[in-house]
């Protein structure tokens, strides 16, 4: 049995009267990559700040590598590499100086630090910019500098708060690949509000909403649990009434709605679980000699997932 690297027990955090985290408990074993998924303001950052010893819990406890984040804060912090949501950078330092400074306050010896700076810069692909001032770097490269800082001292536990926010799609792909690679060696907790991100990188997902853990499972199992209904979007050229009628006749379709969009007619179609009705729709359109302009599965939004998981009612709005 692998040892527990992150342990959160009955953790609650109030900001004044506002309840940010409500009695959550979870564990992360050594070598696991766990995704912390939730919309903005769900308590992800708060939990991570408690784990890193930046703020205290109101009640309950958190520990890293067996050290309590309050009573053994300094020891707990020695085991952590942390990338906060807003990447903390000294704008008037070069990438190299920045890493050297942070390595020094983490107690790294000079020659060891020098080797680690090389490794970290190489891993995040910052080679060409190691002597550049951070203020001159683009958003993506700043993010990489933040990541380099987090992995610099080979921490046992990596905590990354929204590591792919605000960077361009190519860099997102690269960052995810790096996270996956890091996850092979380290225990990793990363937060995100993007569903495909956890599917792409994590062994396990903890879904948190309004301070409460609503689900905890592997991405695969969650996907199965969530497949209550399928939604398909189709843009079809043809007489509206007849198209709607034909769609409803397709086996498995539970509802179909027509909306007028700028480029023609769009149909939002729902079907029962496990039924991919796209082929049937395509065949139906062809048989009627109408025009099929677009046909796609509508991915479930995070909000819908929460409704699904919490069994809540839709309270309007987007």
């Amino acid at each position: 049995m692998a040892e527990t690297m992150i342990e959160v027990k009955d953790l609650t955090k109030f900001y004044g009267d506002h309840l940010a985290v409500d009695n959550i408990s979870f564990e992360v074993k050594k070598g696991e990559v766990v995704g912390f998924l939730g919309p903005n303001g769900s308590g992800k950052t708060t939990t991570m700040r408690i784990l890193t010893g930046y703020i205290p819990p109101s009640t309950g406890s958190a520990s890293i590598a067996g050290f309590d984040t309050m009573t053994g804060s300094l020891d707990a912090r020695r085991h952590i590499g942390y990338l906060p949501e807003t990447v903390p950078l000294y704008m008037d330092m070069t990438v190299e100086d920045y890493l050297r400074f942070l390595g020094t306050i983490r107690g790294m010896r000079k020659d060891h630090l020098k080797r680690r700076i090389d490794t970290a810069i190489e891993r995040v692909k910052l080679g060409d910019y190691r002597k550049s001032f951070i203020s001159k770097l683009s958003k993506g490269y700043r993010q990489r500098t933040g990541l380099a800082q987090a992995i610099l001292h080979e921490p046992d536990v990596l905590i990354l708060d929204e590591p792919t926010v605000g960077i361009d799609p190519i860099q997102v792909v690269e960052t995810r690949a790096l996270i996956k690679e890091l996850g092979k060696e380290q225990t990793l907790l990363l937060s995100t509000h993007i569903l495909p991100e956890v599917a792409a990188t994590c062994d396990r997902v903890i879904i948190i909403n309004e301070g409460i853990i609503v689900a905890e499972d592997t991405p695969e199992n969650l996907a199965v649990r969530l497949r209550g209904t399928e939604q398909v979007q189709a843009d079809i050229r043809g007489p509206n009434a007849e198209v709607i009628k034909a769609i409803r006749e397709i086996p498995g379709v539970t509802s179909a709605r027509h909306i007028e969009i700028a480029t023609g007619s769009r149909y939002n179609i729902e079907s029962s679980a496990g039924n991919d009705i796209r082929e049937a729709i395509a065949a139906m359109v062809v048989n009627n000699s109408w025009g099929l302009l677009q046909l796609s599965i509508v991915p479930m939004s995070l909000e819908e997932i929460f409704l699904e998981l919490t069994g809540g009612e839709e309270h309007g709005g987007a």
Partner: protein
Amino acid sequence: MKNVSAVSVPKVSWSGTTAFLGSTWRNTAAIFWKEFKTYFTSPMAYIIAGVFLAITGYLFVQSISTTFPEASIRGWLEPSTTVFVLWSPALTMRLLAEEQKLGTLELLMTSPIRDYEIVLGKFFAVLAILLATLSLTMFYTLMLFWFGDPDIGPVVSGYLGVILFGASTLAVGMLASSLTSNQVVAAVVSFGFLLLMVLTDQAADITTGLSAQILEGFSLSGHFDDFSRGIIDSNNIVYYFSVIATFLFLTIRNIESRRWR
């Protein structure tokens, strides 16, 4: 629903103590160098030193341009303490305010480094800037020795006093900088506070008895007079050290308070 969590009691052992001192020294030094270098990556240090030299230079020339000039540094030293009221806030305003704004304070506080190491490292860095600037004013003193025959005593005590006075104003500035993420607010707060601490001396002049004594006891400038006259009174030294210690302590507590708020 807030609880105060248990405070850890450090285990004391001799090998542990040496390791503790070693890491404290290394961490404080790391913060010190980072801070010190930062002043020189921007024109900040040069502007700040330049302004100080320009003002004290003017005061020096004025003090020796009288009909019967006195070969002492008192003439420029005394008014130059007033300069610190504006000068120190300019130097200290970014120290902790900027870290809060950039979010780097979160990084420091989640690194294995103690809060007082952050504060002390930064304090020593601005103190070093102060000492470097003051060392340039030695030029005036050398000129006095070249053209006149000043007493060495008041020169030494005067410099000691001005260093203590300056260090106290820096400690006040640090506290102000820890209170806000806005540098301008930090500067204004420390300026206001320092002005108050200097003006209590004048307030003491218009009152009598106990109230005058108390006001004088708190006054930053009231404790400076002896130094410029060539008197090193332990009373005054203790006063300045208390001011420095108090304000640094409050700064550390304020930074720490994030951990238990």
